[in-house]
């Protein structure tokens, strides 16, 4: 199964491997959500939605439905 950001647990780190350009707005890409960049899940709201991430040094929150379209590979 292909892992996405939605599969991360709190405190876990990963590398972004692919981003679906149909589902992901340009603004999110511009904030650093691009293949090759690292991502860490900082905090989740109740029901794991939205998710508070550290992507490439930028701290931002996105909804789970968006997180499902960002493919990752876990580190370690």
């Amino acid at each position, binding site marked *: 199964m292909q892992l996405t950001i939605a599969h991360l647990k709190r405190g876990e780190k990963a590398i972004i491997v692919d*981003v679906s*350009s149909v589902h*992901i*707005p*340009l*603004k*999110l*890409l*511009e*904030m*650093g959500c*691009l*293949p090759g960049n690292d991502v860490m899940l*900082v*905090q989740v*709201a*109740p*029901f794991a*939605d*939205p998710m*508070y991430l550290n992507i*490439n*040094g*930028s*701290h*931002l*929150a*996105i*909804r789970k*439905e*968006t997180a499902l379209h960002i493919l990752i590979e876990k580190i370690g």
Partner: protein
Amino acid sequence: MSKQINVALIGNPNTGKTSVFNALTGLNQKVGNYPGITVEKKEGICKLPRGLKAHIIDLPGTYSLNASSLDENVVIELLLNKNDKDFPDVAVVVSDVENLKRNLLLFTQIKDLEIPSLLVINMADRMKYKGISLDIDYLEKQLKTKIALVSTRKKQGIDNLKQLIINYKDLSTECCLNASEIDVDYFNKLRKAFPNQLLYKLWLVITQDVNFGKTTRQEIEAINGFKTKSEGDLKRLQQKETIKRYQFINNVLKKGQDIDVSQAKDLRYRLDRILTHKVWGYVIFMFILLTIFQAIYDWSSVPMDFIDSAFASLSEWIKNSLPGGALTNLIAEGIIPGLGGIVIFIPQIAFLFLFIAILEESGYMSRVVFLMDRIMRRFGLSGKSVVPLISGTACAIPAIMATRNIENWKERLITILVTPFTTCSARLPVYLIIISLVIPEGRILGLSYQALTLMLLYLIGFTAAIVSAYILDKILKIKSKTFFVVEMPNYKLPLLKNVALTVVEKTKSFIFGAGKIILAISIVLWFLASYGPGKEFNNAEEIMTKEYASQDLTEDEFQQKIGSYKLEHSFIGITGRAIEPAIRPLGYDWKIGIALISSFAAREVFVGTLATIYSVGNDDEDTIKNRMAGEVNPILGGPLFNFASGVSLLLFYAFAMQCMGTLAVVKRETNSWKWPILQLVVMTGFAYVVALIAYQLLK
């Protein structure tokens, strides 16, 4: 050289751009609007050494030149239009030392426009704390610019920045990377078709389909039969462009920036573990709200009492010291009580703006967005709707403008429609005076009944907002793509200067905005109340003499009878009594009716109106509150403002749409009269029904 240097401050949100602006301009700033749109335009003058001056514009925060909102459009429109009188001689790009990587994306885009640009790296005082070191020489060379390390908090680097602004002619206008490599063929064709145009500018025009200056996308397509690409292809190219820019930035920072993670202390994560916690996050949020309301109530009571009695004495003093006549009466009975009705609320409104400014400045507001998103979504709103709903407690007009960063149109529209339910500061005067009249004093668990009632009214407003959002979500059939990105900025201790400037600016515009309307209305009301048609008004003295001839009245009592008889037969009395049947079931008399009608200009006019009506023909020195307390219900006897009519009035003001300014801004933001009219009819109708039920149950 006497020419002013035009400077544009550009930067991502949360980089402290406004702090830099405040540091450069101090009090020499003004806030207005861009013509035709409701985007806030901040500009100021900065005195430079050698007698030079800079005209500085603080442009809206944006993450990139690919605009996705009206505010961001302002930035590109200015940067692409060389003929604009504000077109910058120099672009000052403000970045935050902790988010340099992301902030540089915008910088590389601006460089591509070949405008002389210099880079401010702000919050430099945090470098040591975060273990960051920078090779400024290397960065300046690679980015082809000059860099100013600035700390607005420690007041460092501002003089150096001013020096760099003076020498703007030395700045390079070379691009830092060649973005056209993403599709060489395509850009070569573009260059051939438009040899005289800037390539990146054309690219922005093509990808964004907005009208910049004179060149439009249609024109580009029409000339030389140049074919643009499909939407999907363009989006893929934009993605490629972004990746390319980041590759460049990563390479530059690899050598120019060093972050020693072992040195970094992270307060953010420790604070966020509590402040965004599943349980404690919400508890703390509620606690903060409760504290704010209690503080607004407690802290402002002393200055308010002082203002109230000061205006009463002023009115009395003018009456005694100026020669009698219509003009003196107009001032003493019309203008001063009317203005007093608004000035008295300065303390509370200032405190409200103070708290909102602190929540925004500290970075806490984004945590609230994060916590509330899931809950708000159930009601068809977004977590970002919380910001308009909270700042709506100050004023619905800026709150509705703040919905612009909600990406989803349906969520945004619903937020716009329900925001006027939140208790704005214009309702506060009405609530406060009625609460103090009808709610007993006393405390429970250290909180006063009156403060709790106020809190309850805020909750009622908020509940009305989310329930109607839920209903609208079910009714409105709008399909729009959802997406939601919110930056979680670092926690910052709010800068006193920023907070103070915000509070002063907002309070001033509130007071002067409302003050003008109130002044005009007080004058009109005074005339309408002081003159009347027909013989009843003009012969009041004779009629009263006849009627009370048999009774033994003192001179004072007799004068009062004449006064109230005159008022009843004045223009305003006649109008008021004509609408009285409609509001009688709600527990109001015709005087309140007049106040209700004038409230449609702006709610806070209510108190001023009553103050004006009650003081016409009344010689005593008295406060507004005492006059209201002394009003007697003409039919039932007993005080006019009792528990039942008081609650009914509170509820009417909680729900009714009585603000022309809000209606105008809703029209502008939704581009249709349909939505403001819907708000006016539905909200006011609902308010009438609720107030009716409340009065009939409680009387």
